[in-house]
């Protein structure tokens, strides 16, 4: 819960300015960008995600290093399971392509 998960911003939604599709190790999930409203990420940027909310922008290298840390801590599987959102992903929204 306290370790951040790195992800790459894939798609932003013009009608929903705070929502983005983010990819984490091949898994895509919508995350909320509202906590970065002062420095909004663009498509292709990397972010650190805490419990479904992007908390900071980071470089690609730092993102890869953070993923490596999660793998070394044995927490990468759990992180990916978390990113899958326990099946709640897009319960009421169209799937991003």
């Amino acid at each position, binding site marked *: *819960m*306290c*370790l*951040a998960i790195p992800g790459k911003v894939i798609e932003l939604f013009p009608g929903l300015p705070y929502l983005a599709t983010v990819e984490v190790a091949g898994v895509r999930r919508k995350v*909320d960008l*509202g*906590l*970065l*409203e*002062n420095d909004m990420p663009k498509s292709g940027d990397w972010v*650190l995600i*805490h*419990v*479904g*909310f992007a*908390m*900071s922008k*980071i*470089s690609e290298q*730092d993102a890869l*290093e*953070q993923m*490596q*840390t999660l793998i*070394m*801590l*044995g*927490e990468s599987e*759990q992180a990916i399971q*978390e*990113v*899958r*959102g*326990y099946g*709640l992903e897009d*319960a*009421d929204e169209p799937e991003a392509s």
Partner: protein
Amino acid sequence: MKFVDEFRDPEVINKTAEEIRRLVDPARHYRLMEVCGGHTHAIYRFGLKDILPSNIELIHGPGCPVCVLPMGRIDDGLELAKDSNVVFTAFGDMMRVPGVQGSPLEHKARGMDVRIVYSPADALKLAKANPDKHVMFFAIGFETTAPSTALTIIRARAEGIHNFSVFCNHVTIIPAIRAILDSPDMRLDAFIGPGHVSTVIGCRPYEWIAVNEHKPIVVSGFEPLDMLQSIVMLLRQLKAGEAKVENQYKRVVPWEGNRAALKAMSNVFELRPYFEWRGLGFISQSALRIRDNYAEFDAERRFSVPGVRVTDPKAAQCGEVLKGVLKPAQCKLFGRECTPEHPVGALMVSSEGSCAAYYNYEHRKAMATTLAWPA
């Protein structure tokens, strides 16, 4: 040094370890507290103790949200969810934490509607998808997760969702550090500061530790090299007789923190006059509650909360371990009645808890050695 082979750059690791050996005064015993449970997990996982000189002692701090939550709050939250119309949602970490009448998972087995969510936003989605139910989110965590809960409540208000509430157990890290420094049985030389909490609060809130308490603090990343570098920075300060706040984790932590996250928190939350912490007792202004303006989303005001107070099992010494007075294996229940499979105390539940970390790496290793020993 089992895990050294996995390090990305063993040569740099070795050089940093050498620097640490050069900096330590062999006549001195160093007590460094890593505040964050993520660091505790990493220290055991990476076997960092094996790399450090024996006169550097790492004391595990209070930064494990599941571990510091008093048992009564779990019982309170579960009590609210006994209403058949209520769906109890919480992070996976919470699910196996025992209350007096069992953990959330055990309540689920008895028929309570208990669901794991990854994000408070998922709990809100669940509320939207089930308008005839009331979805309660059992919120825990320090400043790493509190902004997300705050923003979820703001979103719920904006979207006009009325069947959603938060049972707020968010706590703040600074008063816990203050309580530890005020504790008479605690002697510490310096702090390894939490990494991800600091992405939100920045480094400025730690300045009193350096200025008033004259203790060095270095905000650190989570890789083995990050932590070793942070220890180098602390030792340099100690050697020079300095006390400063330094930021080893600059690539992620801005000095000023995340202003949008702080704003969301202050819009939705206010400080409670006091809050009980497991092991540390009541600490004033150490936890967050929902402001009047968002009262409709406050489970404590929507429902009647029993206000259960439970003392920990007498034999369990979670408090002493949590304060760093005892090592996990010095607790009478450790590895016998209390294991990760059957936890008695919360420190054994979360991977960030020092007992679980110690059990999973040190204790299992020791048991394997014992079993492998010829009779």
